[in-house]
């Protein structure tokens, strides 16, 4: 049965609105799904951020302990540094004394070096003179040898032998000077 004209118009509009309401529901479903998704993401992010924060708090506590440990070690090291500094000062003093001794020794060594050089020069000079004296001696020895030879030759000669009696007379009458 067809409705009356006025009612037909109302039914027509109802149909139109009923369908448009479905469109609106789809839009709202989209908005709901999108919002729910974003909300879940935000919750997840907040949770993750808090977990990170807790991690950082743990790290901060750990670093606090490390800092305290380093502080105590720092004080210990300061004491060690003081002792080391004192030892260093003493060592420096010893070092300076040793340095001075070394300088003195170096001067002495230098001086002795110069003496050694002069002695070496003197030694070489004496060696040269010794060589010259030895050479002169060798010449004299050679000359003596020559003269000895000449003496022997002369004494072995007939004239020397024939005149020997004369020299005996001479030796008998001529006295040797004292």
């Amino acid at each position: 049965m067809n409705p009356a004209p006025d009612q037909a118009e109302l039914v027509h509009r109802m149909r139109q609105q009923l369908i448009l309401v479905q469109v609106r529901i789809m839009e709202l479903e989209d908005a709901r799904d999108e919002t729910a998704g974003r909300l879940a993401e935000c919750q997840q992010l907040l949770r993750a951020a808090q977990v990170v924060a807790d991690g950082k708090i743990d790290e901060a506590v750990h670093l606090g302990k490390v800092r305290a440990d380093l502080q105590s070690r720092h004080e210990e090291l300061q004491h060690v540094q003081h002792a080391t500094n004192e030892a260093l000062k003493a060592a420096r003093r010893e070092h300076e004394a040793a340095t001075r001794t070394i300088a003195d020794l170096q001067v002495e060594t230098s001086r002795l070096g110069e003496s050694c050089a002069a002695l070496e020069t003197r030694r070489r000079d004496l060696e040269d003179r010794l060589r010259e004296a030895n050479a002169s001696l060798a010449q004299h020895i050679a000359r003596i040898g020559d003269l000895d030879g000449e003496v022997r030759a002369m004494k072995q000669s007939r004239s020397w032998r024939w005149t020997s009696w004369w020299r005996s007379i001479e030796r008998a009458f001529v006295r040797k000077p004292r």
Partner: protein
Amino acid sequence: MSAADFRSEIESPLPLRFVGGAVTVDGWCLAPDRPEMPEVRLVAGEHVLRRATSEVRADVPRLFPGHPAALNCGFRISGLLPAGVFLARFEARIGSEAWRTFKELSLVVEPLPFMAVIDEPVATGTLSDRVKAGGWALDPASPVEKLTLRYGHREIDCVIGRPRRDVPAAHATVPQAANSGFETADFLVAGHGPVRVRARLADGRNVVAPTRVSFSIAHDEFHGPEIDLTAPRVPLPGYARRIPAAPASPAARPRNIIFLLPGSFASNSALHVAALANELSRLGHACTVAVTHDVATISHHEQPLFRAISQEDALSALVFPDGRGPDVIHCWTTRENVRPAAETLRSRHAARLVVHLEDNEQQLLALTLHRRAEDLAGLGDEELDRLVPADRSHPRRSRTLLAAADGVTVITKRLADFVPAGRAIHVIRPAADERYFFSRPLPDEFRRELRLSPGESILFYHGNVHEANAAEVRELYLALVALNRQGPPVRLIRTGIDTVDFLGPMAAEVAPFVLNLGHILHHRYLPPLMALADFFVQPGAPDAFNDYRFPSKLPEFFALGRPVVLPKTNLAASLRHGIDAYVLDQADAAGIVRAIGALRADAALRDRLAQGAREFAAANFSWPRSAAALSAFYDAVLRHQVTGNANP
């Protein structure tokens, strides 16, 4: 004696987070080298919560055998904290020694939510009497400015500011608690459902709180007993997304692609461009779509995988994520609002230019200017420059653009008629968004709620009416009138905007048969509405307009799995009449009446065409396949390997 060294564990779930200020933390704590039980407290800023109870621990004595405090070293700290984020320090001490922190944690206290209670005349259960109802409503952060009760389809106003003695006792720190009472301004009216209290607060927030009360008021002076307000809602089913599968084979060489769209993302062309850009992105390409105006209309597309920019931005700086410019400039049509941009971009970048044709542009221009295409072709450049609007193609400049293109894509083969010889051509087969457009059964229950007459049929047509299609849509309306005159009623559900008055005096006559829903903002909401239809009709006839176009609603018609009536033009060349669709030589009023009459009379034909539509859609319409083919075409154009028709 040295300071105690504590061992402990916080065993409440971490991170510590509490709603409404009530904080409870469990754990244990003792000093292994000291026999005494330590005192434990929680310090949060200036607030201190102490151990509320000692808990017996069976596990700790096993860790510290013989320790006298191990058995009772468990603790529970309870108390109230204000809303905020705290650095909570858990501290312990033995005797009067100094407190020592044994654990630090973040602690979040969420504010108390808006609270509302109905306690007059009932505090729980269902109220069925037409009386006034009251209770209290309190937001700890801001006073209530306006309060309503919502139940079923009703929303009724309340009088606020009533004094309450009990609420301040429970919420002593909230100053507005003393006047948090409310009462409905009038007696309850007909409506059925759980009651929610909705308030607008002084700080501008709107808040809602559930209650433990339901109202079930059967009728009042405006609602008689003939209306059953407890009836369940009949939904229009089918608004469910299908998740598309990942592409089988990603592109071997990802490309940078920019589409120049002649309009906004709300345009029909945007449906094709967005679908292709999404699928190309799935293949690994970087896609950007530049629109001439209204970039914000990208919100019409759900989860776009491409970058949306304005044409102005594209022209000022076009850089893709890899730091390079585009490899391909895909200019969508030769229209004047995209042509200059395409030429400018091409002059700046070493990119290939591909032009897309989806209409007989010269015919469209002629229809727009109400002049013959032949006459327009004879006009001089100056006259054409003056006449051609931005959303139409210039007869000569469009040819210049096509001649300069490295490749041309067309929506239907016939458009190759306009492509200069030697250009690479590729046919892009449009499809429907598979996430939403798929075969859906008739929503019988919802159709019954529409109180359709016996034997009444529903047609569905979505799309705007403009100069180019006004005459053929008018034929559809004429057919509607004729069908309603001669037989069981036929109703047309229409969406879209009419930019021309195509009905004239006939408007009043067709009005009772048309459910005009206007513009549906999001295309994805259409399929559940389309599922209401028995048949889909694409009006028209072979002509200079239809032969060169591919109505984008056709793939959507076929995907829904209903018999499709259409004229023997464009897509119909691939269809078998009586198997895939009902193909008419001319889908004018007479033809449409004949086709609908045949379909209503023959159930077997209806079933066969519904099945045929489903099968044709599955075999021929697929954005992933179309995008993969387009990707291959881009590769070929970039390699200069294509001339002529790429997919004849």
